[in-house]
């Protein structure tokens, strides 16, 4: 048994001084295995929607804290948590699951501002950020901050309040988590200082009732304290309360990383033993292969998750 496995990992006379896992046909089998796994995952998600998917660790509290952290780093005041805005954000996410769409406007023509109106939030300025398929809040905030339009909402000087909806459900046959961030400035907000708004043609709306939006609070860093009870309904489950699902994307990523680590390790072992034994053989450059695969591995590991809109 030991000899059988050593054939795959250690270059020796029996395998013509090349680790079995590095042989062309073995690598082709690994590629075929990976493609087969992908097909099975896709087939299962098609056949049984909702079996595969995931519940992220994102919470309303974390999104609120990290959004305000970003603002405070720029010397902007923290946004106050608003339960009514959270209600509109949650309703928006539930609507996307119910009507199976991923956009600011629903297929029936419902705009983000309709959700603000439904919950009775009267605004002079409002905005919306959307995200899906993120596992953690850090990556989510990073992705939003890297996108000019989403960043403009987060660091908008004229917003006063924020509400967040984090909802799990099935979208496009895959179980996922949608995060909706609603920003707003109440219509009766009195301001003392006029500042140039940050333009965001995608998600900001013009002032209603022709009111002039002005900034009342100078850029003083402040901390918003939210009662614990307000934040309890952090995640609204559309279909299930369980957190046992695995994302197909995450599954593919884990399998890819495992295969890369395996092949790179075997290349290291193969290169070391060949060097030690001073074996001469006609193969490609082990150093080059390790370099190339390490680069691709880095691309897989460092690429961000999820999607924003």
């Amino acid at each position, binding site marked *: 048994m030991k000899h059988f496995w050593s054939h795959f990992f250690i270059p020796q006379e029996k395998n013509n001084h090349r680790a079995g896992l590095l042989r*062309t046909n073995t*690598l*082709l089998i*690994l*590629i075929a295995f*990976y*493609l087969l796994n*992908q097909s099975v995952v896709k087939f299962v998600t098609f056949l049984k929607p909702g079996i595969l998917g995931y519940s992220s660790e994102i919470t309303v509290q974390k999104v609120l804290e990290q959004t305000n952290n970003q603002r405070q780093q720029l010397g902007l005041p923290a946004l106050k948590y608003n339960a009514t805005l959270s209600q509109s954000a949650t309703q928006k996410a539930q609507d996307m699951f119910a009507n199976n769409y991923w956009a600011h406007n629903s297929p029936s023509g419902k705009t983000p501002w309709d959700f603000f109106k439904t919950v009775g939030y009267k605004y002079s300025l409002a905005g919306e950020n959307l995200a899906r398929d993120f596992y953690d809040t850090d990556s989510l905030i990073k992705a939003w901050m*890297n996108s000019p339009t989403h960043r403009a909402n987060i660091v908008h000087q004229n917003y006063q309040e924020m509400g967040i909806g984090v909802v799990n459900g099935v979208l496009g046959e895959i179980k996922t988590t949608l995060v909706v961030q609603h920003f707003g400035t109440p219509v009766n907000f009195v301001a003392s200082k006029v500042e140039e708004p940050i333009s965001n043609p995608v998600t900001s709306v013009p002032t209603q009732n022709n009111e002039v939006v002005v900034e009342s609070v100078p850029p003083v860093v402040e901390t918003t304290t939210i009662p614990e009870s307000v934040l309890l309904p952090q995640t609204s489950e559309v279909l299930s309360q369980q957190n046992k699902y695995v994302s197909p*994307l995450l599954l*593919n*990523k884990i399998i*890819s990383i495992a*295969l*890369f680590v395996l*092949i790179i390790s075997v290349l290291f072992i193969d*290169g*070391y033993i060949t*060097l030690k034994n001073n074996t001469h053989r*006609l*193969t*490609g*450059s*082990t*150093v*080059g*292969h390790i*370099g*190339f*695969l390490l*680069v*691709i591995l*880095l*691309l*897989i590991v*460092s*690429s961000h998750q999820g999607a924003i809109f």
Partner: protein
Amino acid sequence: MIIPPEVKKKPLEYIFLVLFFVVGLCFYLFADISDSGKRFVAIALAGGYFFWSLYHHYKRGDLNLSIIIEYLVIILFGIVLLTGSFF
């Protein structure tokens, strides 16, 4: 630190390869490009590595079909797993 003889023999070729990888990696990670742009960078990295291998083995005098196939399979392995994870 152990430096493999193949690197000692042709250090410039390997320095060029490392620089090529670093530039590609930085462009992929830090440039503000779309998913299709990233796909293009990944394919360019793979293509660049393939052409480097052709030049490297041609200069070494051991360029043959089995070596070309080996590089193609390694590149295929990298690209298939990368695209399967993200694109």
